[in-house]
């Protein structure tokens, strides 16, 4: 059970948090937005304040950083919505925000971050080309949507800059590529395309992720793979495209195609373990958690490519003086290797693979990054056994996985319209 718990903290916990805290924080978040004139007096003993999702805000990580760096760090794990809102509306309430490149179409113009000077990032040259050129290895495809390379470069003032620059919007952190998880006993065949999401064989046995921005993208991958529509940019759909997509989904929903829509990590695991669904959009650590329950579950590598997402560590514009120096120290620590090894055991990759490799025993590196069979039983980040001897990571090696990212998580220009139509999809019966 501890195996699952370790994994469950990855993303599920954070989403649940947002639900629980919703009523309380909704007002306070917005209220604090009104009070911006207060001076931000920093005491030497005050901890460095960092916010993020449960993926990166984990006691072990911030605790180890504080120990290594010699100053206090206070991490606050939020749900996606709360993180988005706090980062945007309360940049005097954090020094570092561990957020995601798909938020940057909103965050960069709002000017809540300060530009990060790469000259102050010690291991800048060790950061892979995935975020610098968009291609992890030469010949990879960049992918549609908010690819990190489209969001990373800014000028000294934090405004968008074309092409490589000395300044960046956020320091590349942990990342992964998601696709479909399926139970091979139930599907009866390997799943090799997003089109299978809508195949009538699986009617009533399919689940989608109920986060409109991401769920719509998974559905769009499926619809495009079926040849029903060709999206200009799945990461930035037009109203017309959103209409076509949602109308299609409503028809499918009325046919009874969907078994459920999940919102948290735990729900997706539950749906698969209980046999309710045969096939669903899924996060990769959830597949590991399903396997840990003894239920077969495979992470598909669709021929159309996967959907990528990438964490970015940012510094608030309000951080100055000693606090700013500490923020830089914390950023440098994040990519120096220990944290990379920690998140690797949850199935996430780090922007500085060479540093991660130094902190990861060879067996674990081979399994998580090289896609080789586990030479022995491997642990999760908290030391409990997670991977059985001989197990192979679905989706192959890090390079294979990121060679073909079809689309990156994005917040579209028409986001409000998408959310409205998604609500209509959920209400349709």
């Amino acid at each position: 059970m501890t195996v699952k718990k370790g994994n469950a903290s990855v993303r599920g916990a954070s989403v649940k948090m947002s639900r629980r805290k919703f009523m309380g924080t909704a007002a306070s978040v917005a209220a604090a937005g009104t009070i911006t004139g207060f001076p931000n007096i920093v005491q030497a003993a005050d901890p460095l304040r960092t916010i993020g999702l449960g993926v990166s805000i984990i006691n072990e990580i911030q605790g180890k950083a504080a120990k290594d760096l010699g100053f206090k760090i206070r991490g606050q794990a939020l749900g996606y919505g709360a993180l988005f809102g706090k980062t945007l509306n309360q940049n005097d309430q954090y020094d570092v925000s561990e957020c995601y490149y798909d938020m940057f179409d909103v965050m960069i113009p709002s000017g809540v971050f300060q530009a990060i000077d790469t000259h102050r990032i010690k291991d800048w040259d060790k950061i892979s080309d995935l975020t610098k050129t968009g291609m992890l290895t030469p010949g990879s495809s960049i992918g549609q949507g908010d690819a990190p390379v489209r969001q990373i470069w800014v000028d000294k003032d934090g405004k968008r800059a074309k092409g490589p620059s000395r300044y960046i919007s956020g320091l590349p952190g942990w990342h992964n590529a998601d696709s479909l998880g399926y139970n091979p006993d139930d599907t009866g065949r390997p799943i090799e395309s997003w089109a299978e999401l809508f195949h009538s064989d699986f009617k009533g046995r399919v689940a989608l992720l109920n986060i409109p921005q991401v769920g719509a993208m998974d559905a769009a991958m499926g619809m495009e793979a079926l040849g029903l529509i060709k999206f200009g940019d799945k990461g930035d759909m037009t109203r017309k495209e959103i209409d076509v997509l949602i109308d299609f989904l409503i028809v499918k929903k009325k046919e009874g195609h969907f078994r459920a829509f999940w919102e948290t990590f735990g729900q997706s695991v539950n749906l698969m373990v209980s046999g309710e669904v045969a096939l669903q959009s899924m996060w990769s650590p959830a597949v590991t958690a399903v396997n840990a329950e003894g239920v077969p579950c495979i992470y598909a590598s669709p021929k159309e490519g996967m959907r990528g997402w990438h964490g970015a560590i940012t510094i608030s514009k309000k951080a100055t003086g000693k606090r700013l120096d500490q923020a830089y120290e914390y950023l440098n620590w994040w990519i120096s290797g220990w944290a990379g090894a920690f998140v690797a055991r949850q199935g996430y990759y780090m922007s500085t693979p060479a540093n991660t490799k130094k902190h990861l025993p060879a067996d674990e590196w081979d399994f998580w990054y090289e896609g080789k069979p586990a030479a022995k039983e491997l642990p999760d980040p908290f030391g409990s056994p997670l991977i059985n001897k001989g197990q192979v990571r679905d989706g192959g090696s890090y390079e294979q996985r990121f060679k073909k990212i079809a689309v990156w998580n994005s917040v579209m220009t028409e986001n409000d319209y998408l959310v409205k139509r998604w609500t209509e999809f959920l209400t349709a019966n």
Partner: protein
Amino acid sequence: MSDASKTHHTGLIGSQPKPVDGLQRAKIAHTEEGFPTAWLITPATIWLILFLVIPLISIIIFSFWENTPGGLIPAFSFEFYGEYFYTEGFFDPDADRFLLPSVFIRTLGSTIYFTLVTMFLCLIVGYPIAYFLAMQVQAFKWQLALFLLCMVPFWTSYLIRAVAWLPMLGRRGLINQALLGMGIVDKPVSFLFYSEFGYTMALVQIYVVLGIGPIFFSLAKIDKAILEAALDMGATPFQIFREIIGPMSLPGVAIGMIFIFVVIMGEFATAVVVYGGKTSTAGTVILNYYGIANYPFAAVNALMLMLAMVIGIVVILRIVDIRKEL
């Protein structure tokens, strides 16, 4: 209840508590004067002002703000109210959305629908239980024990119970195993869970106790002597229920229904866990917009939900005048 029937009852009721006489009234007044009653409500008042009134006012204020790419801007804009009520093509006879209420109004409508269905079922299921406890169980100790038994489900988080239904109602659950085993079906039925059936069943199961409590208390208050008197005068059990028990338990029914109404209107977790998120409730819409940091629109949705709830409560109170009945 009409005044006529009221008089009728008073005629029957010989053992009604006597009106407070002059001496007693003076005593009560004295106690009130001698005891600083205003101080008693101070903590609650401060609590409510801090955590209800002020947040409520801020929600009203936010609902007029603008949500720009650069963040929230204080303003007095009706943009999001327009968004709530108006759908493109509403006035266009050629559009497929001609005269179709906005998705937000439809969602609120479906929330009200599920709430009413659940209230109705809770009444049908809950009333007999309350009646049994109050009228059939004689010993007070047993009444109390059985009533506490009704509360047992509240001892665990209902989300835990909701999760526990899956092994019962799911595709591989007990019921499906039994149906398959007996050869009644040849493949698992899926309407039991992640379905409208499952959702309504769950809501009734979770909230029926909120109805049983108040109905039980108002039934227990009925003086048994009145019922005996009615029997002696030749009333049939149906007449007794229609003329005495029914009307006298109405306040409990109303209070119970208000509890259920208020709680289910704000529901969002059960729709996610038991209905598999396959429906939107007014609550999930608020969450969705909170999730994309569109606080003004979340606030508008919250206020409309609140308005619907206030209207609902007023309607219930119009049907039953609780003050008069108590």
